[in-house]
């Protein structure tokens, strides 16, 4: 039996995150559980606490685009209270269209989470520099 050292990891293995501004288009959704089902690698799952029917599949963008990094402005870093870059977890939401092989992730709207405080924000980057729909399945 493992000792659960982190008080915000619940018995189902999920981490409770708070997004003070919600997500763009979902400003009222502040609480999300982050789950990492072991047979779900490399994907993670965000489940809204306030609305059962709202959930997102997400991914560590570096696993599909190794050179991806999120430039954080001074105000964003302050809002996140990051004491070091190691405290930042970056996730991007995955869109699965009807043709699932064309699935994409939104690199222009990453979620940046402070793993220590469990607070996160969706950051808006320039859609000219960062793809809104980055294909994650290598196309032949």
């Amino acid at each position, binding site marked *: 039996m493992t000792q659960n050292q982190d008080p915000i990891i619940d018995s189902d293995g999920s981490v409770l995150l708070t997004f003070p501004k919600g997500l*763009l288009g979902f400003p009222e959704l502040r609480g999300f559980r982050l789950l990492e089902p072991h047979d779900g*690698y490399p994907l993670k799952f965000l489940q809204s606490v306030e609305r059962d029917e709202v959930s997102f599949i997400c991914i560590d963008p570096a696993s599909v685009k190794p050179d991806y990094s999120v430039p954080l402005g001074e105000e964003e870093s302050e*809002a996140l209270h990051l004491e070091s870059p190691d405290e930042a977890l970056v996730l991007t939401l995955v869109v*699965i269209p009807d043709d699932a092989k064309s699935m994409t992730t939104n690199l222009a709207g990453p979620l940046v989470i402070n793993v220590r405080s469990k607070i996160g924000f969706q950051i*808006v980057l320039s859609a000219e520099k960062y793809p809104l729909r980055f294909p994650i399945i290598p196309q032949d």
Partner: protein
Amino acid sequence: MLVITRKPEQSIIIGGEVEVIVLGITKDGVRLGIKAPRSVQVHRREVFEAIAAENRAAAEAKLPLQSVAAMLRAAQAKKQDDR
């Protein structure tokens, strides 16, 4: 909708905390300055709409995470094999 006409250098205050200043008017458009508390996010509308639309599309995913993950791992493994 409240409609207000401002000349350059004039501003409006929203909610007692957000100030929008007309900095100038050029052939490329109106240059606006926005002073807002850190807690208020300010975005160009089309950028906001694009991200919000992608968020909504992401919330529509109908396949279970495990099958999507299996597809992704299979494609990544194939790519490795092809090298």
